[in-house]
């Protein structure tokens, strides 16, 4: 039985989020992949394939959801790591800053390449950078 400690939530079912979910699910972790696109969620649930990264195997421990209430299921103990390399209008805030405003946790970090989603999904050696003010 998986516990809360074993569960990883991934916000964003683009190529990178899907690849990370694939790696973690193959390692035995329960993964909840969140997408704002209901079609992506349906495809993962029915075909175990994501239209955003068809090469990635998505075994059973991975679930997909489009539930919009992401903030409602988090609390201060959660760590949120995002993989969105963009600045948000209107003040060019970093996504971490935007998330800090919108989520009930302060523990937020960012994950970035140079790994490529296809390489991750195929299990090739890759390197990624993770940054957070929290250890």
């Amino acid at each position: 039985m998986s516990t809360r400690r074993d569960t990883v939530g991934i916000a964003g079912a683009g190529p990178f989020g899907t690849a990370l979910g694939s790696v973690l699910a193959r390692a035995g972790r329960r993964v909840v992949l969140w997408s704002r696109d209901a079609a992506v969620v349906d495809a993962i649930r029915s075909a175990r394939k994501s239209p955003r990264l068809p090469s990635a195997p998505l075994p059973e421990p991975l679930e997909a959801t489009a539930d919009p209430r992401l903030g409602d299921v988090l609390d201060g103990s959660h760590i949120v790591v995002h993989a969105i390399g963009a600045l948000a209008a209107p003040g060019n805030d970093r996504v971490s800053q935007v998330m800090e405003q919108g989520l009930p946790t302060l523990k937020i970090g960012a994950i970035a390449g140079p790994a490529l989603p296809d390489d991750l999904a195929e299990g090739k050696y890759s390197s990624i950078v993770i940054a957070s003010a929290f250890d």
Partner: protein
Amino acid sequence: MASDRPVREAENRLERFNADREHLLVEVERRVVTRKIAEARAGGDASLEYVLNDVAYCEIRRLEASRKNGAVDRWRDLSRRLLTMTETDKEEELRNLVRHYGRDVVGNFDPRVYRFATGVAPPLLGFVFSPIGSLREGMAAVRSLDARVHADGEIAVARACAERGTIVVTPTHSSNMDSPAIGLGLLRAGLPPTTYGAGKNLFSNPFISFFMRNLGAYRVDRRLKFELYKDVLKEYSTVLLEHGYHSLFFPGGTRCRSNLVEKNLKLGLLGTTATAYKNSVREGAPHKRIYIVPATINYRLVLEAETLIDDYLAETGKSRYIINDVTDDGESIDRQGRAVDPASFVRGADGEVTDDDQRDAEYTRALGRRLAAAYPRLTVFHATHLVARAVYDAIARAAGRRDIYRLIRAAPQQLAVAADRVVELVDRLRARLADHPAWGAEHPRIAGQPASAIVDDAVRGLSSYHTRPIVSRREHALHVDDVKLLYYYQNRTAHIPPEAV
């Protein structure tokens, strides 16, 4: 299992402080000694020899520098003995030192002194805050001076928090008068008195020392630089918070030399709030919430302004030439208004309370950012601030630059502004302030007054409070006699951007 009931202890908790004091000291000693011994047994730089040597080394350096050769012998002796001491001897020495510093730090609260001080202090404080000119108005002025101290803001929320948990008041810091002023402000707001750390140097005056010693202040000796002393101080603050004693910290650390609304906060003992709450959750008491209450102290005139701005300009000159919000009843919410459980912030993924110094330090930094962001909105402007800003804007515009170092060297004729022009600029500044509540608000005393009356009021204060006038009226113009102090007072408005030309 502990319930999440409110604490509901609105009374002056400091009245039970003296009965609690020995218990608090024993707890501080137990925790510090236990932790130090555990760290020492883990090896590395945390050995007791290292801890004790750090104390001896710092004390020898301090006492030699102050030429107290008699007192230094005790530390030289410890330094020598360390080489041959057994671990048991070192533990005993550690325990004695922690006990000694605990007793040096601990405060006292005498309800009789509190009642006396709250009766006498208001008029005395008002007297200190008044311009020298009002001395001529005699006793009638002295009686009305009490009314000069004003507390405003979301006081009902702060009261609800004080009933439900422990409040930590975190004001800006610009004067040595801040402690009595905020004490009086709390009294005015119907909030309970707080304990606070005060520099040991302030205890050298027998009169001030008497009041501070008996009103819950604890002593902070900034000359003691070694880690053990800081550990005792932090633990004392943590234990006070855990026992529900409302506290006051100045997050800025020392007095703000520039009179700017503080942005870079040193935080200091503020970090003990996260530790105290974590300990309470671990003890099964998540209802013992700690609420941070940001506040600003805004003086019409600042007693030490002359020395403070000199310090600031000397310092900047060197470099130049070289956690949750709460509802009205104290319920914790996030920025989207969702109810949150504050205890979850100190728990790990498995739901257990975790010790994580790095996480707590990050929480404290985040708290510092929130406080610094809250201060401008809480700033209250007096006539002196608005007029100083208007005059500074006028002379800066005439000179083509806002740079204080250049304006200091401006010719006297460049430092005169038509009085009508100042009135107009004050009017425009007030209109901008009314449109931007995030910048702060006018003091209620001046809110209904015409700009001309505000200018008169400010000129009276700015020309008579300090040893030399800052601004004086000559015929139809205001002349700046002290640009540095004008800059100091206008700095309170520095977060308001200059008006577009």
